[in-house]
């Protein structure tokens, strides 16, 4: 897939709560094809401490308005600078980057997102709906505060929630959700994005049932286009770049 570099206009910068916000970015050309699981490299202009671009998952694609949506958690200086972008300002993006989640032609799939790892799951759910695949989403977070815009999934899939403190949905980690009882066997594929320990725990569980599990990695990255080899992930076939050969990997291919 061809990669592009463009200045996107900030159409909206919507705080979800004190930690999360959504950027609505208008593309200056007609948006090229974008697959679920792909990401963008965002240039942050602020200070010497935000020298490199930030890799950010594509949260949603609005073809009617020709917009890309990014769901971002304020973590460091880069994401904090992005959170203060004003409507009308421009943001330079290299996009669309990376491979994508594989899209089956039928069956039932489970999408699991932990914290800001939920970001690529909305566009995946939407995409699966167009392919007539039955999708369910399991969203996990520390508390209600980390369960972001769960209503947005409802047109596309059934929504399940866990929180560590039980403030929303079932109490516990995503792997402790009741879906991981008998029901897990009825899924044909599982997609996960979140902290590594969560992805490892989920993949170990579903691998027991021989269900293919795709995980989206968030390795530290410099170029985003396969030039520097900083972001590689060890696999059974050697090191692979998270930015080009990933970020989505079959869990069984990874050495973790």
């Amino acid at each position, binding site marked *: 897939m061809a990669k592009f*570099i463009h200045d996107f206009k900030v159409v909206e910068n919507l705080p979800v709560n004190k930690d999360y916000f959504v950027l609505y970015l208008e593309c200056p050309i007609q948006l090229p094809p974008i697959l679920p699981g792909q990401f963008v490299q965002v240039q942050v202009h602020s200070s010497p401490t935000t*020298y490199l671009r930030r890799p950010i998952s594509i949260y949603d694609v609005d073809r009617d308005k020709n917009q890309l949506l990014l769901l971002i958690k304020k973590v460091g200086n880069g994401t904090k600078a992005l959170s203060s972008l004003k409507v009308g300002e421009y943001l*330079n993006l290299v996009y669309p980057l990376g491979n994508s989640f594989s899209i089956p032609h039928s069956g039932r799939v489970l999408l699991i997102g932990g914290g800001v790892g939920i970001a690529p799951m909305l566009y995946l759910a939407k995409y699966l709906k167009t392919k007539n695949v039955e999708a369910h989403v399991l969203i996990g977070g520390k508390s209600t505060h980390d369960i972001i815009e769960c209503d947005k999934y409802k047109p596309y899939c059934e929504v399940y929630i866990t929180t560590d403190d039980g403030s929303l949905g079932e109490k516990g980690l995503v792997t402790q959700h009741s879906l991981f009882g008998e029901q897990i066997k009825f899924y044909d594929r599982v997609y996960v994005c979140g902290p590594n320990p969560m992805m490892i725990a989920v993949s170990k569980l579903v691998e027991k049932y021989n269900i293919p599990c795709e995980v989206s990695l968030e390795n530290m990255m410099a*170029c985003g286009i*396969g*030039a520097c*080899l900083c972001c590689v992930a*060890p696999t059974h076939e050697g090191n692979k770049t998270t930015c080009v050969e990933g970020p989505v990997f079959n869990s069984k291919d990874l050495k973790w």
Partner: protein
Amino acid sequence: MAALEVKIHDLILKNPVMTASGTYGYGLEFDDFYDVNRLGGILTKACTSKNRDGNAMPRMAETPSGMLNSVGLQNKGVDYFVEHIYPQIKKYNTHIIVNVSDSTIDGYKEVAEKLMPLEKITGIELNISCPNVKEGGMAFGTSCDTAAAVTKAVRGVYNKTIIVKLSPNVTDIVSIAKAVEAEGADALSVINTLMGMAINAETRRPVLAMVTGGLSGPAVKPVALRMVWQVSKAVDIPVIGLGGISNATDAIEFLLAGATAIQIGTANFVDPMVCIKVLEGINEYCDRHGVKDINELIGGLRY
């Protein structure tokens, strides 16, 4: 528009803008963004005699105005390069220079010998300055004797252009430059990364799996500029300047300091279009200053 051609030994570059090894893949990664043939030359990712998996993760850390990397020369080896990568890049109509590294002198020779027959590879850059490998790399580039020995050995088997990439992690870069010049280096690349480290105070752990890494980006530019100035005054062969170049002004500064050409490295990560912007900016500078030929600027520092 000024004449931009420069000469590195017997290589005529259409302009002085090249890419730094390890930051530009094999050029193919940038095909989507612009016509790579517009550049004076590209320097590929390092090539070693055998497959190298590179270092453990994490391999990078962002630092003020720059970054540390400890990729560790990950590549599939020279045979793979010849069979699988060369056929894809020989389409380029610009100089393709392969960065060569290894852990032994025989390894350097083996890679150089295997690259010798490749018509579109017009030169090699001997990497005796990678700070991220335990054996070889910088170990060769930090003493005059070993730097000279690698250069001499490769000179014996390779008769196209040999550029030697020097390490800044030495007390006297000029003596190393003279030592490799005496053994037949045709040009020098100055500088490779500066060895550094980063610590996460919260976890009290090093950020990089290898603890140390090579610092690059605008943070190193003043050091690089100083070394280009020192080396270019001391040797008779051309110097290619690199270290933190991010825009045309930076590039001009390196030319004034004595560089005949420049390489752009880490800035490619920040802006994939940077090489073209630098090229256009050099043109604009020449027009603004009434420079008819870029060669007027080389070593043209006024005191």
